[in-house]
């Protein structure tokens, strides 16, 4: 909101001095004394709100009311009642909704995390239907340039894809975002969303092979990144057996363990594999033993050794790893 402040101060003529508002008596918020403070911005804000209350109470669905809601929104885009009244006016005036999208974009440029803006945007897009697709995908893209993890924008984009379409380039777009930042969990989530839900790609099973390779590469480049590890596991949703048996999965664990750095998630996945019946070769035991600082603490059971090691290297979650050790299934090796 900070950056609007100056613009408004420069251009603004008080409503009380504008002829088109001379017939309106402003209404102040009736929640008790509201002492006036010599802050220019605050006065403008109060005055604008007072006029807004007047047209709102009179239910005046006019062009000037629409303009007034714009002013209020620029001063405080969080006011729920103002947005709601704006929709009522837009409907009554049968206003051009493409213009409305431009208005929202202007407001969003400074307030991309404002909940009301997204709510309103969706309302407009829904009315426009498939005509809105390209503009909506472009709009969210712009937001992601500023904040690639904006939760509202992701939610909006997913809604657009599912309700209005536009899936064609979505996997490429995820790719691009992950190239910019491989740690972007929102982009990983979107990738999973596309792979599992796009009507064009054939679903999770059809995509699994290529996606496993993608996740493995991402892990090798940054093994400390929790997102691709979870993504990899998610690719075997409802098919744990394939996950346990796929050599690509165990070998990426082994590779990371052998690199001897950033191996917490590799140990964790190995532990999960062991708990689900994975039979480790000697290479796995050697790789883990090589990480144990004190050979005395190595256990004949690999899973126990892994737990003890995790307890040491991830002390913040020591209780979790202790619990994992206590709850190991009887037949792990």
């Amino acid at each position, binding site marked *: *909101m900070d950056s609007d402040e100056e613009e408004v101060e420069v251009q603004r003529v008080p409503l009380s001095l504008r002829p088109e508002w001379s017939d309106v008596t402003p209404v102040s*918020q*009736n*929640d*008790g004394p*509201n*002492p006036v*403070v010599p*802050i220019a911005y*605050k006065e403008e*804000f*109060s005055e604008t*709100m007072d006029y807004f*209350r007047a047209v709102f*109470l009179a239910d005046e669905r006019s062009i000037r009311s629409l303009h007034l809601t714009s002013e209020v929104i620029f001063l*405080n*885009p*969080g*006011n*729920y*009642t103002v947005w*709601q009244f704006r929709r009522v006016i837009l409907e009554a005036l049968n206003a051009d909704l493409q213009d409305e999208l431009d208005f929202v974009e202007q407001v969003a440029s400074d*307030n991309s*995390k*404002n*909940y*009301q*803006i997204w*709510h309103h945007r*969706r*309302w407009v897009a829904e009315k426009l239907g498939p005509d809105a697709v390209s503009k909506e995908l472009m709009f969210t893209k712009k937001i992601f340039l500023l904040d690639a*993890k904006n*939760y509202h924008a*992701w*939610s909006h984009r*997913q*809604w657009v894809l599912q309700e209005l379409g536009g899936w064609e380039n979505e996997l490429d777009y995820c790719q691009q975002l992950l190239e910019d930042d491989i*740690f*972007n*969990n*929102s982009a990983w*989530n*979107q990738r*999973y*969303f596309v792979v*599992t*839900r796009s009507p064009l790609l054939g679903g999770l099973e059809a995509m699994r092979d290529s996606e496993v390779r993608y996740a493995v590469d991402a892990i090798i480049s940054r093994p400390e990144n*929790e*997102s691709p590890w*979870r*993504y990899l*596991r*998610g690719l075997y*949703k409802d098919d744990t057996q394939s996950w346990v048996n796929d050599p690509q999965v165990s070998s990426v664990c082994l590779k990371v363990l052998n690199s001897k750095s950033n191996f917490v998630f590799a140990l964790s996945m190995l532990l999960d594999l062991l708990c689900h019946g994975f039979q480790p070769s000697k290479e796995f035991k050697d790789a883990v033993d090589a990480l144990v600082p004190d050979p005395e603490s190595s256990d004949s059971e690999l899973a126990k050794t892994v737990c003890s090691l995790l307890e040491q290297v991830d*002390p*913040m*979650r*020591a*209780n*979790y790893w202790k619990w994992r050790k206590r709850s190991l299934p009887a037949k792990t090796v």
Partner: protein
Amino acid sequence: MKEDLYLSLQPDTLPSFRHLIGSSEPLSTAGALTPLRSEANSSSDFINGYRMGEELEAEKHVNYILSVEKKKDDFESVVMEHIRINGAYWGLTTLDLLGKIGVVDSEEVVSWILKCQHESGGFGGNIGHDPHVLYTLSAIQILALFDKINVLDIDKVSNYIVGLQNEDGSFSGDMWGEVDTRFSYIAICSLALLHCLDKINVEKAVKYIVSCKNLDGGFGCTPGAESHAGQIFCCVAALAITGSLHQIDKDLLGWWLCERQVKSGGLNGRPEKLPDVCYSWWVLSSLTMIDRVHWIDKEKLVKYILDCQDKEKGGISDRPDDAVDVFHTYFGVAGLSLLEYPGLKAIDPAYALPVDVVNRIFFGR
């Protein structure tokens, strides 16, 4: 605007519900205020589990909250005008947890709350504002704090909420129809507090929430949306209130949640995001409800929250040395309450109200 405004204090952001949770069998965190102990860190500068010199400035926080309530003249309060009811909930609940709600004139608060009610039965963020479930839950919670739920026309309020359930079991936040698991939580929590849960289709409501579960065990705002600690709180709490916690993969979710603790001891809300005091509440309450709170390093988290205090003027901020606000003050104190910090009333992780208030509602005390 701050990081993760989505859930934070902004007016726009409709924060308040997130913190408000419930369960028909109150998940009592109550009981003795046992000091924290962690095997990892038991050096001698800990007394009763707390580091010497790091203390909760309880009295200053009380003064801070009272001063915010009085200050109707500064810019922040003008901008907050339309969510005053959320602000009131944060402030008053904090006062109650600190044992100081008695200093507030309850008559005045209750009569103001009633003036925020709309003819539809829902509540607005202030007098004359449009209704939304967000504000409606805050209104009910505030009345609960003062043992005044009985002043409501229960049918009227509950019918407003019931009318927002959609065919698939989800809830919209208002007549404009936006769907979000936050609204599922708010609706379920509100109706439970009004003893009206049987008025909605609980089975469908649960089914919708479960459809928002992700591969990492967490939940998002709609099916397929990224897991986010705030949404997780809403979903876990709604499942807790409806007796459906078995729908959660507790071990998987518990691990994801405890991975949210970063080196500084604070918690973030998603991977690779900055820690923030408000997540002390969302993550911790979720962990508490699934009985996995011992998986994080509690001492480090206590220290992080205490480091976010303004030790001069009171109040708690999102991160050390940032400006304080009521929203983070509430979450900091509520988080400490879940961590059983001495001298604080216990808070219920699902209803986001003091345990004694919840007990009064469900067990007649």
